[in-house]
């Protein structure tokens, strides 16, 4: 069955499902008519290295290559919809075995100014070691971004996606398998779109996989940013941590829903998730649903936590007593809050690049 037929055969998602509780499908569909599947325009993709002097050998973007299938753990509605909308816009990021880059690789996706969709396959070989920044920018009213694929055995990857669009809706789906003994940091920096619905799913299907999922979410004005993160521990001796920081200003709303699922047989699994929300204005709202399903008793541990609160008064007092004015102290604490996950996403070079690109958004949070 092709993607469009699959999408049309599915029921409208039920809002009793936490995935759809706060952002119903209609709100992130490009037209609101759920039967409509627009053929969206292709974005412009550019692959470069942060260090201009480094030649890109062993890594490439190929167009029109049918990539990896969506994992069965992923949501069929969003994945099939983007696949159908992106049937003219299929790319694969191919990385050869043993590829190593000392400077972050940047994949720019410029959406243009009309509805845009892309299906990108990550085909990352064995024992690679590099950092990848995927930046989505442009002025498309609706962007669908589907990533499928596998991180090869033994690879070490810092993979950061930054949503940096001017406005509009971003519908993002990740459906990624983590290979044996692979070490992955999957960072999300969300700041640009008016409305984001992201459904990020990772399958730890092979022994020894190690995954850190990190989020640094800045919502201001009327933004509505909804992220769902699922990590499936299907193999023994797998490790995952999720650390998600959201700062909400203006009349914005952030939603973080997480699911850690430990399957029977995943002995020695070690899984944890944390959601932190910083509320900065009277009309901002933050919602968290960190879920756990554990079907294996022989685990190292599985846990989750959430914490919501305003800027800490003691910390404010400390900074003010050392000469900061109230505004400066608050800005410093907000930046530190967001930075605590940003700094974990990769190298200093990657972190500096992110910090530089987020200055404008940090200014917006004050409004």
């Amino acid at each position: 069955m092709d993607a469009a037929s699959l999408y049309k055969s599915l029921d409208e998602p039920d809002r009793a499902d936490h995935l759809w509780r706060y952002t119903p499908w209609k709100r992130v569909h490009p037209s609101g008519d759920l039967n409509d599947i627009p053929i969206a325009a292709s974005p412009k993709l550019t692959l470069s290295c942060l260090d201009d002097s480094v030649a890109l050998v062993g890594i490439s973007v190929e167009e029109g290559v049918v990539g990896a299938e969506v994992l069965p753990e992923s949501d069929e509605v969003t994945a099939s919809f983007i696949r159908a909308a992106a049937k003219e816009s299929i790319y694969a990021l191919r990385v050869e075995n043993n590829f190593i880059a000392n400077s972050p690789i940047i994949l720019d996706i410029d959406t243009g100014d009309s509805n845009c969709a892309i299906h990108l396959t990550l085909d990352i070989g064995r024992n690679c070691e590099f950092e990848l920044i995927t930046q989505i920018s442009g002025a498309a009213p609706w962007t669908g971004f589907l990533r499928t694929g596998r991180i090869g055995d033994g690879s070490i990857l810092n993979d950061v996606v930054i949503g940096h669009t001017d406005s509009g809706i971003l519908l993002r789906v990740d459906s990624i398998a983590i290979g044996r003994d692979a070490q992955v940091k999957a960072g999300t920096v969300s700041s640009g779109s008016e409305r984001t619905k992201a459904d990020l799913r990772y399958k730890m299907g092979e022994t020894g996989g190690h995954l850190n999922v990190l989020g640094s979410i800045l919502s201001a004005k009327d933004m509505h940013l909804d992220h769902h993160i699922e990590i499936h521990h299907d193999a023994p001796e797998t490790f995952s941590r999720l650390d998600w920081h959201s700062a909400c200003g203006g009349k914005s709303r952030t939603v973080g829903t997480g699911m850690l699922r430990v399957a029977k047989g995943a002995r020695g699994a070690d899984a944890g998730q944390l959601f932190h929300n910083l509320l900065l204005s009277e009309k901002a709202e933050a919602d968290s649903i960190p879920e756990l399903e554990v079907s294996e008793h022989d685990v190292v541990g599985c846990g989750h936590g959430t914490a919501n609160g305003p800027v800490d008064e003691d910390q404010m007092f400390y900074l003010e007593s050392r000469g900061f004015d109230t505004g400066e102290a608050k800005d410093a604490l907000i930046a530190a809050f967001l930075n605590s996950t940003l700094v974990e996403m990769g190298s200093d070079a990657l972190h500096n690049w992110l910090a530089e690109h987020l200055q404008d958004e940090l200014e917006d949070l004050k409004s």
Partner: protein
Amino acid sequence: MAAKEAREAVGEYKAGWHDPENATIRFDFGLSEQVVRDISALKNEPDWMTEIRVKAFHHFENRPMPTWGNMSMLEEIDFDSICYYLRSSDATEKDWEDVPENIRDTFDKLGIPEAEQKWLSGVTAQYESEAVYHSIREDLEQQGVIFLDMDSGLKEYPELVKKWFCSVVPYQDNKFSALNTAVWSGGSFIYVPKGVHVEMPVQAYFRINAKNMGQFERTLIIADEGSSIHYVEGCTAPTYSTDSLHSAVVELIALPGAHIRYSTVQNWSANVYNLVTKRGIAHENAKIEWVDGNIGSKLTMKYPAVILKGEGSHAEVISVAYSGKGQHQDAGAKIHHLASNTTSKILSKSISKDGGRGSYRGMVSVSPKAENCKLNVVCDALILDDGSRSDTYPTMEVANPSARCEHEASVSKVSDEQLFYLMSRGHSEEEALAMIVNGFFEPFTRELPMEYAVELNKLMALEMEGSIG
């Protein structure tokens, strides 16, 4: 507590026997508007109650089953094979000797009269659909405390019941609250006047005896300003091969400065569906506590809730759940902070064993106008063996920036170090495991009256028997 000692104390599921059924009135299986009207007519209820029952029945019929939770177990419920009303005694007696002998024997075995003499302010015993025995201490009666079965409450205080009935849990709340409102029978009605403190707990004991029985008690507790009460309920049923349904609704109203504690030790047999709606409203500076233990049943879906409506009010939910073979304990808590300076605390503990499944499902919310709220949620789960499962589904919605909200949960196995420590001091592995489990549940048991805590520890030790090797 060693498993052997526990077995001697409580035997196999000790409440699993059943008496011969001696019904004075038994309705046919199945539910219709006529059944609802017949129940109401039999009880000679006022018209407004009949009307609300009928509306609730239609709502129940039209409302689909929940699309969350253990849907496969829920779909196994055959509403047409359940008896919705069965009366085994013609009256609610005030003297124990007047209760029919077979029923008296049942409650004697469960230790109810003994407990009443020792440490209770009052007792209601419900057998199938109706209360069969009811008593309250004279001094409390003189202070104006009303403690009746719900049917008598409706007869004697119709205006009070009309004012509060369905005010906390409307029949439209969910499918099973609609079912309860349509066919409710029995339960407790309590009113505590201003400033009166009921020092010793009052107790209700619910027993299902017949096969394929539905028990739908309705409890309404109103604590007037500055008063306090502790209500304790226990539940048992015989073990049959076919399923029974228990679907209660409990409404608590804590008026300004009042304190209600509602403790439950649910030990239904493993063929009972336990689908219960419990909710309280706390007014200014009031406090509501749910202390909730779920040991038995086939499927429990129960999420005690508190609406913190008044400034300075406080809510606590302490719950434990044990899920054994074929059981799913889907329990949790809901707390809604609607007013400023409100605080709440949820502590949930669960153990899964022999393929059982324990789920915590919770919701806490802070409304935009509720300033300076504080809430804390802690969920701990132990999975004792291969094939058992534990889930946590918490929801936190915060719409006020001054709120401080914390949630933490963990799922783990029994620590090898703890087992080793106890075994190195002479305990067998089984004893060590039982001690660890009782320690795990201790934050719950210490909140129970002593007799219940001892009983619960024995039950848990018994459940742990055979868990090693």
